């Protein structure tokens, strides 16, 4: 039995199954991300774990306790909201101390714990500031500290970085990860941003329409999507049906499978055909219809007799001849040619 065990949770809202027999297993100290588009049920699931939304069926076990029917305050979970929900009438110190005050700890204990936490989030000197005097990133750290100081069994984070600038998001997500590792805090993180999910998680659960499409490590999810949905959601996969590949200058397509996915960076591109035949794979011919500079990535749109292929390469200085209109040869190693299931 894992540390957090969520079994067959069902929630219906207005005749729609917002959560459709969802199950998760999480080990102690793991950082899990629920990833998916808006409306997939990830926030609903998180809130159900926190006890803010009741569920219709299923069971939620945390640390061996069945918390399915307990009110939020008895569940010993911590939660950071998307909008932080800091108490405007309280200082940073008071906000962080609130949970401990509710536990009726004595003043000295509270002071000690809160001060430690404030150092951990690096906001020394701001104890007596009010939320509206802090930046977005600072507010988020206070929200985090407020939950962590109670040493909850599980920490839940509901899209905590969505409201911040891209630059700050990146720094903050790493900070969160660092703190989480240091405290060995079992964490469930919700986001719709796949880059974020891939960057910080131990494992990812990809959700769609109330179900779990696939789960695994970032590496697994990214390199081996199992369904059309995941392939389209993660990264910039090329997704083709067998039909689409008929009558095109492509050789080496495996016999099995009806739907295929190939990552743009797994495709070798060259102005010369590869005559060595050293690797098993799929080859194709076409010409460059568009070349876009995406900073450190060079993105090519290749026209293979009408079929669109996206190829990404690192933007190295010496790329001769790869200009729009140029004829090119593509090679995909067999291991990178993934078969995926169709999603409804």
């Amino acid at each position, binding site marked *: 039995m894992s540390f957090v065990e969520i079994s067959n949770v069902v929630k219906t809202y207005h005749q729609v199954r917002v959560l459709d027999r969802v199950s998760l297993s999480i080990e102690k100290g793991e950082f899990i991300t629920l990833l998916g588009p808006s409306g997939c049920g990830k926030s609903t699931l998180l809130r159900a774990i*926190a*006890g*803010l939304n009741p569920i219709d069926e299923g069971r939620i076990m945390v640390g061996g306790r069945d918390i399915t029917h307990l*009110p*939020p*305050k008895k*569940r010993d*979970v*911590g*939660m950071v*909201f*998307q*909008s*932080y*929900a*800091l*108490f*405007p*009438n309280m200082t940073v110190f008071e906000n962080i101390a*609130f*949970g401990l005050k*509710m*536990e009726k700890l004595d003043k000295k204990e509270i002071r000690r714990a809160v001060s430690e936490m404030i150092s951990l989030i690096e906001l020394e000197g701001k104890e007596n500031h*009010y*939320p*509206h005097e802090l930046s*977005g990133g600072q*507010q*988020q750290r206070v929200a985090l500290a*407020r*939950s962590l100081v*109670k040493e909850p069994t599980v920490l839940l984070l509901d899209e905590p970085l*969505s*409201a*911040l*600038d891209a630059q700050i998001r990146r720094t903050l997500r790493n900070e969160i990860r660092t703190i989480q590792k240091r405290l060995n805090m079992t964490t469930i993180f919700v986001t719709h941003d796949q880059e974020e999910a891939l960057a910080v998680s131990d494992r990812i659960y990809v959700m769609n329409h109330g179900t779990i499409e696939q789960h695994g490590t970032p590496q697994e999810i990214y390199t081996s999507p199992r369904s059309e949905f995941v392939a389209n959601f993660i990264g910039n996969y090329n997704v083709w049906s067998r039909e689409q590949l008929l009558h095109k200058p492509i050789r080496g397509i495996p016999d099995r499978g009806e739907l295929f996915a190939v990552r743009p960076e797994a495709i070798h591109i060259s102005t010369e055909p590869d005559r060595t035949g050293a690797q098993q794979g799929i080859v194709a011919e076409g010409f460059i219809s568009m070349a876009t500079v995406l900073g450190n990535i060079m993105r090519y749109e290749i026209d293979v007799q009408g079929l669109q292929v996206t190829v990404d390469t690192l933007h190295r200085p010496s790329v001769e001849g790869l200009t729009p209109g140029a004829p090119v040869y593509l090679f995909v190693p067999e291991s990178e040619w993934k078969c995926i299931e169709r999603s409804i």
Partner: protein
Amino acid sequence: MSNPARTARSKGRWWHIGVTSVVLAVLIIPLLATFLFSISTVWQNTILPDGLTLEWYGRLFSDERFLYAIGRSFLVSAVTVVISLAIMVPAIFVVVLYFPGLEKMLQSVVLLPFALPGVVTAVGLIKIYSSGPIAISGTIWILIGAYFIVIMPYVYQSTRNSLRSIHAAQLMEAAEVLGAGKVKAFVFVILPNIMPGMMVASLLSFSILFSEFVLANMLVGGSYEVVQVYLHRMLATDGHMSSAIVFTFFVIISLLFALVLRIGRGKSRKMNATSATPADNEGGVTA
């Protein structure tokens, strides 16, 4: 810039200054005249008073009857406001957060007083409470009862808006996850943050009740003489005293109003960026 455009714009400007001045003058003149009357010695058949004096104010503020009347007005207004807040705020909170289905009905009910001017509610109140088991007519209690209804829409509007702007539901959730029960969460997290809104509603309601005449006259009249009723009785007898009362009354109302403004300004400063939304980071302001 061509000349015709400039003259057109400045002509426009003069028009606006003119209109504004005229309207302001029209509004202020009655008040000014009253003030003048209150400091005049004799002002019978002449356009302007004969002389000036402060004796009327002196007499007024040493008149026991006046002071008692002011006291009663303050008392009944303050007590009604306090009771109203104590009863309505938790009720509105509960409905808005936990029984949203009832909100439509609540809204219709609290807005009814706008269709029930004093004279109309007095009819029913007199019928029910003049005799029988609960004959509170003529006492302060019936006035408090009726006044509660009078300020209902203002208390509702203000409380509901405050709850919305502080995102009360989210704050409650955060507090509950941190271990607070619903009551503690309400007391520690919700109340302090709606306090400015409640203050504004209190002062506004207080002003309205302080200026109320019809119900006071019809329901209690002389048995519990408030300032407005006192003034009415003085009208026919002593013009100078009456004008002093009117002007004093106006000053009190203005002070209350100034307080409301002060609190309103402080509130908007604190409410900025206490909860993050994407708009905040572009420099926009919520609430």
